């Protein structure tokens, strides 16, 4: 037989390595389904949307308000943080003088490494009391959105920075030689090119936002209800798991794994939507 050359071995190794991530996802899903199966077998699935309330120890398994809660808080946080993040990246790439850019980028990198627990902690000692003065109880959708925005903001800036800095210089030079204004170059040359990177980055962050657990648990109030206003408390699927998992047995425990599975379904839908509207497909 013809001996394998280095390049062929390299390709095989790379393929196996790339396969590891697929494998780990399969494992994660397998364990989630395995643990969620008992509850799916013992009660019919429409009850997760039609039961009167979430009182698993009394046999009520309403998950709908938590699905809505998770999506609501994630969307709120992205609406606040995405424009702020992209604007900051534009500032650091095109407007700010170097003496400001360096500390700014440094600040953002460090902020991205601060545990969300610390944000949650600051939320509970500053933001919640502030909101409570205005409208009780303070622990609310709004508090969750604010805290979550701070958590994802640094990463959005980092990713936007990266996307903006990877524009090929040729295009910018061409635009400049055409005598376009700074705004026009940013708006019509740089942003369209950076769009795929910005877009996927923000989608990935919304995944992180919907998965955030401990900080949200600390400031959202955790009452299982469809909130009537942004000042009312809400519970997310993640807080539901963190609050009750340690104490849950049997069907209750299984229902919490189902919360995890539901979360995965929401994430999947978000990703499918993102992929459908992703500009990447049109560009390549």
């Amino acid at each position: 037989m013809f001996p394998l050359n280095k390049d062929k071995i390299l390709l095989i190794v790379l393929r196996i390595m790339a396969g590891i991530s697929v494998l780990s996802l399969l494992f994660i899903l397998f364990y989630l389904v395995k643990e969620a199966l008992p509850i799916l077998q013992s009660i019919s699935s429409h009850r997760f949307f039609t039961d009167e309330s979430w009182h698993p120890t009394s046999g009520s398994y309403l998950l709908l308000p938590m699905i809505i809660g998770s999506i609501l808080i994630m969307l709120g946080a992205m609406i606040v943080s995405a424009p702020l993040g992209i604007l900051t990246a534009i500032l650091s790439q095109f407007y700010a003088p170097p003496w400001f850019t360096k500390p700014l980028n440094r600040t953002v990198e460090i902020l991205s490494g601060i545990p969300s627990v610390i944000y949650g902690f600051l939320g509970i000692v500053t933001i919640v009391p502030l909101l409570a003065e205005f409208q009780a109880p303070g622990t609310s959708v709004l508090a969750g959105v604010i805290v979550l925005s701070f958590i994802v903001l640094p990463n959005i800036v980092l990713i936007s920075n990266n996307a903006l800095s990877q524009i090929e210089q040729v295009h910018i030079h061409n635009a400049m030689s055409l005598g376009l204004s700074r705004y026009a170059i940013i708006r019509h040359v740089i942003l369209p090119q950076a769009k795929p990177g910005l877009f996927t980055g923000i989608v990935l962050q919304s995944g992180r936002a919907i998965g955030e657990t401990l900080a949200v648990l600390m400031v959202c109030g955790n009452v299982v209800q469809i909130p009537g206003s942004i000042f009312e408390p809400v519970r997310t699927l993640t807080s539901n798991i963190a609050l009750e998992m340690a104490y849950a047995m049997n069907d209750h425990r299984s229902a919490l794994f189902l919360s995890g599975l539901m979360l995965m379904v929401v994430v999947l839908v978000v990703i499918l939507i993102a992929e459908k509207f992703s500009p990447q497909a049109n560009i390549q």
Partner: protein
Amino acid sequence: MNALPTNNNLADTLLKIASWASGIFIVLFFGYLLFDITVNGFSRIDFSFFYESPVNAGRQGGIAPMLISTLLILILCLCISLPIGIASAIYLAEYTNEKQWFSRFIRRCLNIISGVPSIVMGLFGYAFFVIALKLGFSLLSGALTLAAMVLPLLIRSIEDSLRAIPQSYRLNAHALGLSQWRMIFQILLPMASQGILLAVILSIGRAMAETAALLYTSGYVMRTPDSIMDSGRSLSVHIFDLSMNVPGGEPSAYASALTLIVLLLIINTITAYISRIIKNRSIK
């Protein structure tokens, strides 16, 4: 930093104001965060805080075991995830295009993994690494779980920086008769090293901030670990426990948070320094 033309018009001025506003907002916010944590944490810190073991559930004593555990988890996590991450990114960027089903499949899997909430990841890590693989509560279990969590981020950023390398380099390498192997290791990876470093910074940030997943995998033990098979408490888990579970733990929680931020600052400075060296070398 692009030297764009500075001609003013209304749209440009508005964008300038908006981006400055968000940038200053972030710096002010970080200033407040740092101020609050320093004011509340500094009085608790003296030199012995860094080399002593905690006493009385962490209310007194130091954080030495937590620092060692955190460091070991980080190193292990990168040892596991970086080779897989770089290999997968090379495979995706150099051997596939967006249209092939396998690469689309891997990408989709990565997006979904990035959406797995950390608490669910923790439960998976507990069921798989701790119980099924019999690794027990150990730094290794925690690092493996974290590695799975940072993979999407790592692969995505490295792939982006590989794709940003102009096609002409690859064509020239082929024309010179370089093997794929040599092209990747001698041209592409060195050129992408900045992006790889950014990916590493992002991952370290994410890993250091992680709390929920580690609680279920590397555990809660406050002792200095003897080996990677020992349970060890990370700094973030320590902060969480002090602020949510230990009455009177707040000063120590603040002090630990301050330490974490200073650590991030140090890591950040070192990576910035290394990246400058690499940049200078590749210019020569």
